[in-house]
């Protein structure tokens, strides 16, 4: 199982280590550093690295490498999933997961790691249970602790750990009972030069924030459950009911959680909400290149496309650009050659455009590579797949909860080739 964990920052320093079995010398990370040096970009470090005695399995998040050391055959995905869970927990506890935050809360970090793994076996990874065991640090609690001498550590046996609903603690009480569900869809797409879609798929999630007293039993039904043929559920969802009736039935955890994630594959027709007209050309023998880009909405069902951000990695030969945006602002980093244009909202009457010239190194030959354009955007009040919640009902409790459902579509990896 998981033997040790090292946290490594982007400059290659180990700033925290934790061993669940015998101590493994830090020098084992030398193999990791070698791989890190070989990698051209930080994210290119391979996730599984063999060394003579151990295997190093790492994930990179928030510019910190979480490097787990294992000694025997352990499923690598098990380790990777666990590491991501560690990061999520830190983020949950400290708001951010940075080197500074981890160092600031080192004692809590250790207590958490100790609770999450025992001898390399996962112990408590549900945030609800962890929070009962170890209270998250807040300014108020720190002050109170200093005055009264009480601690972050809970005195009680985490009740949820033994019940049939380990994700929910007992005795929850709220004065305002509310349940909010956010249907968030991210659209991943590759659009080719001519504007036709090469691949497009939708990754959707339903995130919930449920603050209901007692032991509520919820059901959620959809207008078009047919769309959801590839789903991953939170453990609380009753799978049998879904199989039979296509209804989500569950006792929710308390607070924020991800109820469901789903995937609408490239086999279904996926609507593309924006289009790009582009003309990026270099001429042989000239030190100038043309750059023209126009954005427009498409298949948005009348909803506004907002928070649009366009970025593109220009060829290495480009020295500088001189562009003129019709709206928003643009920046160009002459070192990384990254062009980014903060567009804002697309007005269908007056399409935003970015036009101008690029200057190349004098005498250099025409760049070989074609830059790819990356687009981010948001559309409120719409799920691009067309998924719609039919109704949400609550059983098991007497009070009347306040219910809310929100839809949003975002760009995931939305790329336009030129």
């Amino acid at each position, binding site marked *: 199982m998981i033997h040790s964990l090292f946290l490594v920052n982007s400059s290659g320093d180990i700033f925290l280590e934790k061993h669940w079995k015998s101590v493994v010398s830090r020098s084992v990370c030398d193999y990791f550093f070698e791989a890190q040096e070989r990698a051209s970009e930080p994210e290119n470090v391979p996730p599984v690295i063999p060394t003579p005695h151990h295997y190093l399995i790492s994930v990179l998040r928030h510019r910190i490498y979480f490097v787990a050391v294992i000694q025997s055959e352990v*499923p*690598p995905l*098990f380790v990777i999933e666990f590491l991501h869970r560690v990061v999520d927990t830190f983020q949950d506890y400290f708001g951010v997961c940075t080197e500074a935050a981890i160092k600031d809360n080192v*004692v809590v970090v250790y207590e958490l790691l100790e609770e999450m793994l025992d001898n390399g076996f996962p112990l408590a990874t549900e945030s609800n249970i962890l929070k009962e065991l170890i209270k998250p640090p807040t300014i108020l609690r720190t002050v109170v602790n200093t005055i009264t001498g009480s601690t972050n550590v809970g005195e009680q046996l985490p009740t949820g750990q033994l019940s049939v609903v380990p994700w929910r603690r007992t005795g929850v009480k709220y004065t305002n009972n509310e349940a909010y569900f956010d249907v968030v869809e991210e659209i991943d797409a590759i659009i080719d030069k001519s504007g036709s879609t090469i691949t497009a798929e939708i990754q959707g999630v339903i995130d919930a924030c449920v603050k209901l007293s007692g032991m509520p039993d919820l059901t959620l039904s959809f207008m078009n459950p047919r769309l959801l043929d590839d789903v991953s559920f939170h453990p609380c969802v009753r799978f049998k009911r879904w199989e039979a009736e296509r209804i989500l039935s569950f006792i929710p955890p308390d607070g924020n959680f991800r109820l469901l994630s789903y995937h609408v*594959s490239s086999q279904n027709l996926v609507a593309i909400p924006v289009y790009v007209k582009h003309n990026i050309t270099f001429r042989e023998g000239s030190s100038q290149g043309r750059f023209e880009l126009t954005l427009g909405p498409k298949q948005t069902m009348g909803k506004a496309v907002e928070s649009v951000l366009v970025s593109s990695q220009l060829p290495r030969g480009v020295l500088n650009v001189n562009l003129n945006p019709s709206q928003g602002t643009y920046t160009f980093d002459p070192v990384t050659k990254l062009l980014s244009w903060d567009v804002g909202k697309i007005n269908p009457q007056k399409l935003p455009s970015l036009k101008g010239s690029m200057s190349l190194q004098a005498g250099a030959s025409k760049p070989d590579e074609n830059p790819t354009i990356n687009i981010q955007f948001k559309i409120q009040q719409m799920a691009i797949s067309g998924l719609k919640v039919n109704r949400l009902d609550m059983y098991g409790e007497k009070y009347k909860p306040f219910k809310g459902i929100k839809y949003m579509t975002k760009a995931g990896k939305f*790329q336009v080739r030129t």
Partner: protein
Amino acid sequence: MTDSKYFTTNKKGEIFELKAELNNEKKEKRKEAVKKVIAAMTVGKDVSSLFPDVVNCMQTDNLELKKLVYLYLMNYAKSQPDMAIMAVNSFVKDCEDPNPLIRALAVRTMGCIRVDKITEYLCEPLRKCLKDEDPYVRKTAAVCVAKLHDINAQMVEDQGFLDSLRDLIADSNPMVVANAVAALSEISESHPNSNLLDLNPQNINKLLTALNECTEWGQIFILDCLSNYNPKDEREAQSICERVTPRLSHANSAVVLSAVKVLMKFLELLPKDSDYYGTLLKKLSPPLVTLLSGEPEVQYVALRNINLIVQKRPEILKQEIKVFFVKYNDPIYVKLEKLDIMIRLASQANIAQVLAELKEYATEVDVDFVRKAVRAIGRCAIKVEQSAERCVSTLLDLIQTKVNYVVQEAIVVIRDIFRKYPNKYESIIATLCENLDSLDEPDARAAMIWIVGEYAERIDNADELLESFLEGFHDESTQVQLTLLTAIVKLFLKKPSETQELVQQVLSLATQDSDNPDLRDRGYIYWRLLSTDPVTAKEVVLSEKPLISEETDLIEPTLLDELICHIGSLASVYHKPPNAFVEGSHGIHQHSADQFAIMKQYFSVLQVWLPATKAKGLEIAGTFSRRQGHMYMDMTFINKALQHMTDFAIQFNKNSFGVIPTTPLPIHTPLMPNQSIDISLPLSTIGPVMKMDPLNNLQVAVKNIIDVFYFSCLIPLNIFFVEDGKMERQVFLVTWKDIPNENELQYQIKECHLNADTVSGKLQNNNIFTIAKRNVEGQDMLYQSLKLTNGIWILAELRIQPGNPNYTGKKKTNATAFSYKLMVHIF
């Protein structure tokens, strides 16, 4: 106010200050001090000298302080074993605390204190906790057994903890079941002692019930355990599959992949024409696609496994090729894997899309990726015949870009296309020749030279082209030199009149001016061929060559089957057989592999133990070996019958050394007709003993679905020689004298032409160690010792007279008649 304050050191007397604070009267001060100590510990400072002071803080009712002290204890107990004993009492007391949280915490921490002396004190509390009324304590205790086993395996067995663990599989609480399974699988991995996890239909049922209710991590353990089970018939396989399928919709990708493993394995056992088989195949595709929307690390592991799955069952993902299209900001390790799978899924139906993608990738920035993309176009051409033409034109387009590395890579793959489709695309040779000057990599130069040589008759200036390469002949790499030699010989055979001078030049360069043996030999071969009989030479050199096959990088089917049974494991990420990793866990390295090779030379000749005629079509050949301190029975099973064989099992009769197999036969998949499987069965000597005649005789029974078969074989004695058989010099001297002469045996070894050092080296490879070497009257005397697995020492004196091929040996042993016979066998 944050914890970072603990990291700031003010003065050099830090340890001294901490010591004072730890002994402060105020509880608050002490807690602060312990926090500082922990912080110092985490950044790698040595604070072990504070051990007694920290342990003093352990007796507290403050849970946080207790936890912190436990943390410290776990880290430093090893370096301060004597001090650590002081903590034992507190543990024993905490194990009886009314609060289950404290009991669990104590039992958890106890197991982490890796000090031999302490572990024996912990057995009693652990036994109680394994039977605790609270499941939270029981599940913690289950893991503690695994910890203890890691420290002292013998004790865990003696105390019967393994049985208690097995009992926990029937526990009412699913979490306890999951942890017991996890602990047992970990123990059985480090210590291949047979049926630790005895899987029978009742157990399986319990595991399947627990599967639905335990945590995601528990589900992974249980699924991995299920995948080791061999269902007795289709119905059982199907019912397990039905209960595992819902796991495919789990949010945890590791659960999904483990479920895929179980299903992929059991799929083999289902009848291919049943409805359920088809449904199950359909259900496997969406979860695999979903794995690819996870974090890049998850994608990587998923892709490595999908690579195996598409080789085994391409139908699962054949509709999904688009999800493997590369996004420009994927990490490089994801890009390369996706590319590989794209080629495997390429077919006539989707080749147009695939080619358009590959062409796009060829204009990316990352050079490695671009090269691989170009290479992929070539592989597509070879794989999908109908697309070859389109691939070639795509490659030509890429050559027009004049990007140096793209051109070179394209030329290498075009050569392979020519080899697959000879006399079809020669019209493009002219375009290729235009790029001759820009080629600077050996691969590309060799490819170009090969093309020129192969199609010399269609290239007017072939002689000039090849001559231009000849100028810097000695600076070229061997590969280019060899290809050039062959190409010029081909050219000569096709146009003998104009190229005589050229061929002589290259032959002399190859044979006289080069010191590369390969090149010289090939040069001479051509030279003699040409000078003796040019007609035959023509037949030989210009003969029709077999076409290259479609896919050269497929994983060999038996390995693939084995890897499919280990989906989700490290083995599946590296595409290497799983036992390579089990050995890895014992700390094995390159040098022992060498030793293994030497050992193999001696004993690896497979003998047919069970001929097919005697066993209704099953043939078993095998041998014994000793590697890395473990004994193995290496066997090859061949199915020469017309039906497939399943349900293999093996059993040994009682024998002189108590040899028994430590694992069941590792044959998980049915053995198809004409298929063979190589297996390595680990052995141990802890079984029942019975004297056999001859002493090293072993009677074996092998069962399969058809019948039970018996055979006997002889175990070479050297596999019983243990690695620590080197006796201390002094001990050797004393023992040698103490052994009475009756126990001595003299013999001669005939016709052995080796000197003393080689002999002792060879013997040492077999764990016979030379203790001392003396030269008496021109004779080399070697004194040697070896130890058998049953603890018997054998001492030997070997007298070697240089020049005399007959050695005189004298052997002594301190055991009874039993060992007498042994010695006879050894040499």
